[in-house]
């Protein structure tokens, strides 16, 4: 039996507003418990919600970025259920009429491009946090601590159609979505802090069957690696279950990363009659066309558009262009470097940003924003390769010196101080070649006999004599000339 895995993702992205969605409490991470929770967040009697414009603005930006329809009129609804981290025991969300409808996300899986349709994206408030460390209650009972600092943080819930067919596709989608919200600046994407959380709806069906199988929902996976493993486990679990004659139950499951398995959450019958109804405290959200236009006018160039531009205008390969449009900071950095170089040198800039710079950032575990080598400095270094002052190989040493701040990070100063200037004087090189040729008649013979290796050996000897500083291209050319 051949099986098909069907996956849809629901992603909760915490929006990067200063204040919460329905109260003016701060959203900054890491404050002492309940110091960023006011009467509205604590649901004190008489408190009422007031909507944050910044949350709506970010929803509009997202909707435009994915080519969705922005609803001119959308409604906030109450989702009623009891839970201690939900202070009102209802969550203000959007149900029948969400603010963003439709849209698509495109991404690469390997070298295949895939596009997934979005069902919708809507605004809602986040719940507080339950701390399960062992507290003791007033009657000596084992207790959980509730921190409402997070309660009320604006969330954009992004729902995909169930169009993914493998864990790899799901992860690629999630990475692309993550990259987009961070690129737009609407979400900081910090998965450890819970800014970006994915729920995966997973089901299986025999290949060729049109009807969807029963799905289970894996909740709150906070890393791409775990997302992949969780989906793989769950798909396999469902397939085995069905093949053993069992039936998949619609339920919520959690991924246990220690055991690498998904586990059913304790479910209750009709725990999920949410009794949605429009929140009478919040009239309809009206978004006028001129607001949408203002947001559209202020949108940054989107990754897809920039990728296309890098390919057509800068001549980069599809792969390089994709790599250089994954994160805005790195992309902007690269673009600044390329702009300072002569035309046609974008590929060289790409190699350096994706190569040496990337490696150094990873090694030191810092973001590109913290790089000690700024775009102008890197461009200056690359310029010295282009004009032949140093070889690419030498440049790597210079880069390392710049990184550690030698000579104030100035490439020319470093080249000067270390005497790394490449020997490009054809007379000098010619003289060195003559010496090497004179000393290696046997190798010349081998070359004449047709052995290419002999040529390389001669080049090597010239470079050695030049202590690595001879311009390799010139050595090659001159040597060829002299050998006839």
């Amino acid at each position, binding site marked *: 039996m051949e099986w098909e895995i069907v996956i849809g993702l629901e992603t909760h992205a915490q929006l990067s507003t200063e204040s919460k969605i329905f109260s003016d409490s701060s959203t900054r991470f890491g404050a002492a418990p309940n110091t960023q929770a006011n009467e509205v967040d604590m*649901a004190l*009697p*008489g408190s*009422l919600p*007031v*909507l944050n414009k910044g949350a709506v603005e970010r929803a509009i930006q997202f909707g435009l970025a994915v080519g969705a329809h922005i609803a001119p009129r959308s409604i906030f609804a*109450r989702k009623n259920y009891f839970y*201690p981290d939900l202070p009102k025991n209802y969550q203000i969300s959007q149900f029948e009429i969400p603010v963003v409808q439709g849209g698509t996300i495109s991404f690469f899986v390997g070298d295949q491009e895939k596009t997934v349709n979005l069902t919708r994206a809507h605004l809602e408030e986040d719940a507080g946090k339950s701390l399960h460390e062992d507290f003791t209650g007033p009657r000596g009972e084992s207790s959980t601590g509730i921190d409402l600092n997070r309660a009320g943080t604006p969330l954009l819930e992004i729902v995909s159609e169930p169009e993914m067919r493998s864990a790899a596709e799901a992860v690629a989608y999630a990475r692309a979505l993550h990259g987009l919200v961070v690129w737009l600046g609407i979400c900081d994407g910090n998965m450890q802090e819970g800014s970006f959380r994915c729920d995966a709806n997973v089901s299986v069906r025999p290949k060729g069957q049109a009807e969807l199988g029963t799905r289970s929902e894996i909740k709150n996976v906070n890393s791409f690696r775990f997302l992949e493993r969780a989906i793989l486990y769950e798909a396999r679990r469902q397939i085995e279950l069905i093949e053993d004659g069992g039936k998949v139950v619609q339920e919520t499951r959690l991924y246990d990363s220690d055991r690498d398995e998904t586990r059913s959450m304790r479910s209750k019958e009709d725990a999920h009659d949410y009794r949605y*109804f429009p929140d009478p*405290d919040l009239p309809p959200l009206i978004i006028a066309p001129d607001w949408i236009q203002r947001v559209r006018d202020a949108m940054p160039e989107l990754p897809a558009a920039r990728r296309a531009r890098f390919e057509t205008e800068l001549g980069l390969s599809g792969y390089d262009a994709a790599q250089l449009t994954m994160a805005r900071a790195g992309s902007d950095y690269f673009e600044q470097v390329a702009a300072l170089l002569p035309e046609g040198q974008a590929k060289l800039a790409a190699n350096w940003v994706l190569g040496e710079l990337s490696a150094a950032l990873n090694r030191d575990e810092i973001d590109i924003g913290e790089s000690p080598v700024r775009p102008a400095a890197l461009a200056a270094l690359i310029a010295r390769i282009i004009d032949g002052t140093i070889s690419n190989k030498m440049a790597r040493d210079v880069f390392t010196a710049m990184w550690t701040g030698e000579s104030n990070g100035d490439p020319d100063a470093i080249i000067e101080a270390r005497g790394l200037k490449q020997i490009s004087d054809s007379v000098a090189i010619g003289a060195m070649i003559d010496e090497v040729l004179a000393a290696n008649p046997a190798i010349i013979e081998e070359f004449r006999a047709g052995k290419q290796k002999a040529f390389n050996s001669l080049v090597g000897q010239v470079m050695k004599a030049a202590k690595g500083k001879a311009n390799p291209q010139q050595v090659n050319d001159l040597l060829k000339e002299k050998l006839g």
Partner: protein
Amino acid sequence: MSSTPLHTQFDGIASLRKALQARELSARDLASSALDAAVARDDLNAFLHIDRELTLTQADAVDKQLSDGLAGALAGIPIAHKDVFVTEGWRSTAASKMLEHYTSPFDATVVARLKQAGAVSLGKLNCDEFAMGSGNENSAFGPTRNPWDPTAVPGGSSGGSAAAVAAGLIMAATGTDTGGSVRQPAALCGVSGIKPTYGTVSRFGMIAYGSSLDQAGPIARHARDLVELLDPMSGFDPRDSTSLEHCDGVPNAPGRIRADFEAALAGQQSADSQPLKGLRIGVPAEFFNGALAPDVAAAVESALQTFESLGAVRVSISLPRTELSIPTYYVIAPAEASSNLSRYDGVRYGHRAAQYRDLAEMTSRSRTEGFGAEVLRRIMVGTYVLSHGYYDAYYLQAQRVRRMIVNDFQQAFSSHCDVIMGPVTPSVAKHIGDNREDPAADWLADVYTLGVSLAGLPAMSIPCGFGAERRLPIGLQIIGNYFGEGRLLAVADRYQQATDWHQRKPEQR
């Protein structure tokens, strides 16, 4: 201890204000004598929380403002707040065991604005639990008694507010009206009350019952005093998203209602013996149905004749969905309430059960112990009508019928009349303890007031007579079109210039 406090020597807030500004008496004098009277009339059980020191401190601060010449328009006027308005200082219980020991860290907007104007609060007034009820018998802290007859209910849910004003303990009180809870107790206690247009007074700090219906309104001895309170209470509040910024293009701000009132009064001056000439009064045929007691019908009829003698004309109108307002209201209000009251779970504040085995039991037990029978009943109804499979048939259907009711009123106002008049209640106040077995029977008595709440229209109740068998007060309801509070109050004032029902006191009858 006297139970006739100083302020009762004045016929209204305007004259008391003059005396205060002339320093003929102090805010402290007024507060002190009002406190004495409130304590002396503890038998009424109108007050839930009194804090002498807190009140006198407020009074002293106002006295200083008065001598500095910085006093607000209500400086020194003794008032009190229904216990669904949260207040710093006094407890805020919504007359429920659930919040028996709750103290709010902030004041309701209504409370803050009246305090800003200089009013001195005597404390918190009894009401039906979470504003659910029409007799103040659903209070967890005992019923309030009608000052006209201690065996009778004062009405509800703002029973304490109406009783305290009727007994002369305070000059005015705040109440809330969701389905009639300002108008009905005002009628049953022989005082005046007004529910303004939905959205004109902030709900921030009002313990929520039915969010799309709740509206705060004052209760006082007559229309002029209602203006004194309603005007500063009203106005846009950014902390309430249902608070209106504009009323038909005019900013929703203090001053609007007073200006409209005075303009309407000026309009009346111009035609002296027929000051209400041109006023068309719509009288809904459906309000004079079988449920209406003959003595109430007679008192309302007599009032209408008085209006006619003042120059108004009567127009017969139809509000065909009057009876339907009952099921419509009793789907929408409980539905909203069931959700609004979910926050009471013993976690962050309020009653927490002493015995429980786990979280679920703690929540259920706390709620069941904390809420009274009527509240539990309405939560159950509300949960039912919102639940899966019933939402469309009940909740959405009710909201559709609501729109039809709004259209009915608009039809009447646009084609036939300027104001609508009729009874507030089918009969005078019933006895405390009567008819407690059939909760739904109580609901039927709200038939004249519910439609107005569903439509969000402004409406008042003013005294217009007494019952035949039992000499208890009867109220006349006057309903206006949206944002017509000022004009409504002017019409009521004209009636009160020509009659003296509003001046009757329980001691004199």
